[in-house]
């Protein structure tokens, strides 16, 4: 498939524009699970805890449903599916706003290891992540909040058969509870994309100091990690660290895009439902065109965003050369749609929409944090233009 504006029909055939029946069945199974385990009462209960998740629900979704390993190859203990199935899981989680260390473990840590590690390391590290026995995450950003790997300053110094890490990471998703933290760091004296590498660090290792940050979106916990000579294991090779890191971030952007369209759909559903119930001036507010047209426009926006998110996942699944560009496209498109849908959903609910008791703010906050998580839409639009060679 072609992402550049001139269509290339011969490659367009490789991509699927519909989910298969099996994928739809899988989606239903995940949705049923979440309807049962993640009603908003549970979301509210868990977001107030410091861990931010329910270990029993995590055990269930890791067990029968095998979700953390959905995209991990079978030889490393996973279910052997790919980016499209991972996208489906993310979409459903985004819809239900499930509180669980899934993005950190399955999307960030597992993909970083798959992209960077040696065979031996993969065989050693992935099975535990796949069956949910260990939690993982990826530490890229630092207190400056920049997502461009070129800005990384944490230093990795060779030390015996391992490395010592020094510096500070921040905005690390679930960094306060992760057993395994994949850290992006650089060789002393290096700059830009050279000298970057990924390292596996035990969360509780000495020289690691972790502190939960106060997240505006309490359903997504963030941490700051100070590294003072913390010992870590190099994943893969020291010279080729940047491409796997960039690849991991692109995959994460696609997963997040799919999460966001799930959230946007939940908001739209809620706004439509409310506009059929609420009566003012003797009519349902949904009979006023000001509301009707807003909702029709939101539906269009959400469907367009879904197309971007689905297409990026399908392109990544078939390793289409355009997929990194589409990752940026999808991230930019979906974060704006998500936030806009959230704001309009509050507007349509009127005063009640601005209350703590109404659920809309849960998604609004996720939308707000997703707007900047992994890079603001304007950052991704610029990246898209560069990737398209414009």
């Amino acid at each position, binding site marked *: 498939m072609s992402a550049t504006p001139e269509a290339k029909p011969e490659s367009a055939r490789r991509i699927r*524009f519909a989910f298969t029946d099996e994928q739809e069945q899988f989606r239903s199974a995940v949705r049923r699970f979440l309807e049962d385990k993640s009603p908003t009462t549970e979301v509210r209960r868990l977001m107030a805890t410091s861990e931010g998740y329910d270990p029993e629900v995590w055990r269930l979704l890791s067990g029968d449903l095998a979700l953390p390993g959905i995209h991990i190859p079978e030889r490393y203990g996973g279910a052997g599916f790919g980016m499209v199935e991972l996208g489906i899981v993310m979409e459903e989680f985004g819809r239900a706003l499930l509180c669980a260390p899934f993005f950190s473990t399955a999307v960030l840590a597992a993909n970083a290891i798959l992209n960077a590690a040696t065979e031996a390391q993969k065989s050693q590290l992935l099975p535990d992540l796949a069956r949910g026995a260990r939690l993982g995450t990826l530490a890229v950003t630092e207190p400056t909040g920049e997502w461009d790997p070129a800005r990384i300053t944490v230093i990795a110094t060779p030390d015996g058969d391992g490395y010592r890490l020094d510096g500070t990471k921040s905005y690390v998703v679930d960094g306060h509870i992760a057993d395994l933290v994949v850290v992006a760091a650089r060789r002393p004296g290096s700059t830009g994309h050279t000298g970057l590498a990924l390292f596996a660090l035990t969360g509780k290792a000495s020289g690691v100091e972790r502190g939960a940050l106060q997240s505006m979106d309490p359903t997504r916990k963030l941490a700051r990690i100070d590294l003072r000579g913390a010992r870590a294991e190099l994943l893969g090779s020291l010279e080729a660290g940047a491409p796997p890191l960039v690849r991991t971030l692109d995959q994460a952007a696609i997963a997040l895009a799919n999460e966001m369209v799930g959230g946007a759909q939940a908001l739209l559903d809620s706004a439509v439902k409310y506009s059929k119930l609420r009566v003012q001036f003797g009519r349902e507010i949904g009979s006023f065109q000001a509301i009707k047209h807003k909702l029709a426009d939101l539906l269009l926006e959400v469907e367009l965003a879904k*197309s971007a998110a689905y297409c990026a996942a399908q392109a990544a699944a078939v390793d289409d050369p355009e997929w990194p560009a589409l990752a940026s496209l999808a991230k930019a498109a979906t974060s704006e749609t998500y936030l806009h849908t959230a704001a309009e959903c509050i507007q349509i609910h009127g005063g009640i929409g601005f209350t703590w008791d109404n659920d809309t703010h849960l998604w609004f906050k996720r939308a707000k944090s997703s707007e900047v998580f992994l890079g603001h839409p304007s950052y991704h639009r610029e990246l898209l233009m560069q990737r398209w060679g414009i």
Partner: protein
Amino acid sequence: MSRINEAEVRAEVREWLAANWDPDMSLVEWRSRLADSGWGMPQWPKEWYGRGLPHTLARVVEEELANVGAVGVAKSGVRLLAAATLLEHGSDPQKKKFLRRILTGEDTWCQFFSEPGSGSDLAGATTRADLKGDFWIINGQKVWTTSAHHADHGLLLARTDWDAPKHEGLSYFVIDVKQPGVDVQPLKQMNGHASFNQVFFTDAKVPQENLVGRVGEGWKVAMTTLAHERRGADGLASPSKRGTRVGKIHAEERVETEKANQPYTWYPQRAGRVDLILERAKETGANQDPYTRQEIAKLLILAKSAEWTARRARAAQQQGRPQGPEGSLGKLAASHVARGCSRVHTLITGTEAMLTGKGSARDGIIAEILVSVPAVSIAGGTDEIQRNIVAERVLGLPKEPRFDTGPFRNVRKN
């Protein structure tokens, strides 16, 4: 299973093309063969110039035709809206009389729906049809009728009962445009072209056998036409390529295309020409400006997402699934894309956007885009009407309060 079929279909159409395709035939002769063989519209029913194939396989047939450089059946303009409507609601004699000549390109068509007093509110039509002997006698006025000046037949919505409620007093006809009593007058558009017209009917005649569907069921029939019209505007259509192939058929086709496209020369411009954005950005250096880059990226993201949304709708259809909400949104998406293009073209072109005609940006093409884009959000049903449709039919929101019930005679009119 569909894989085996695909190979079979390919083999069969190839064999047929080997025996039949000859670029030195006349265009009509070739298209007659194509229509009669069923390969021209393979997704149509077997009895009516088709082969009853699913859309996926119809695409395969198109590929095979393209591979040997064969011209397809005539597909432009209102022709296919007429064909789709007749296939669904026409009588057998009507199908026999009209469908084949639609495909061979011998007849062109136009759509007499809008009137000065009823555009969005199409069911408010007041052009009247009165039965006198074997003929319906037509009196009234239609407006904005694209291509009426060279159409042979028109799809006509007219009122046959003034005492029935608004939507139940309409009937649907095929009218011969080139007859006495049909007066076609060009209307100049804001972009300077005159592709639409106003048309006056004074005792024009329609034979009884040209009534489509039953008397009083015109609204239902018109809905079919409108649904196809909306679907056709989902942004996937691309400006037609002028062939460079040699042979009698191709020469004749070029003449035909040019004539048929003459009122549509500006149509690619009304869609905003997203294809020109990058070229222009590079040639003007606008791609160096960070703000313009952001705006270009926003537009390209929108255009790509709209294209993929249309593809999702088609993929669902091809898999035999009901189309989801994405299927109803094509026309709205197309008008967002067109307006976005207009905005970005202005941004890139800057001060020069004030000029028009030869010598201005891209020899006037950019100016033409800027003054043609407003058509997209009006023609074929305005954005507001599309939003009403999406809100009520897809999202299930409550209907508008009505003030036009009871006998049409008593309904307030423009």
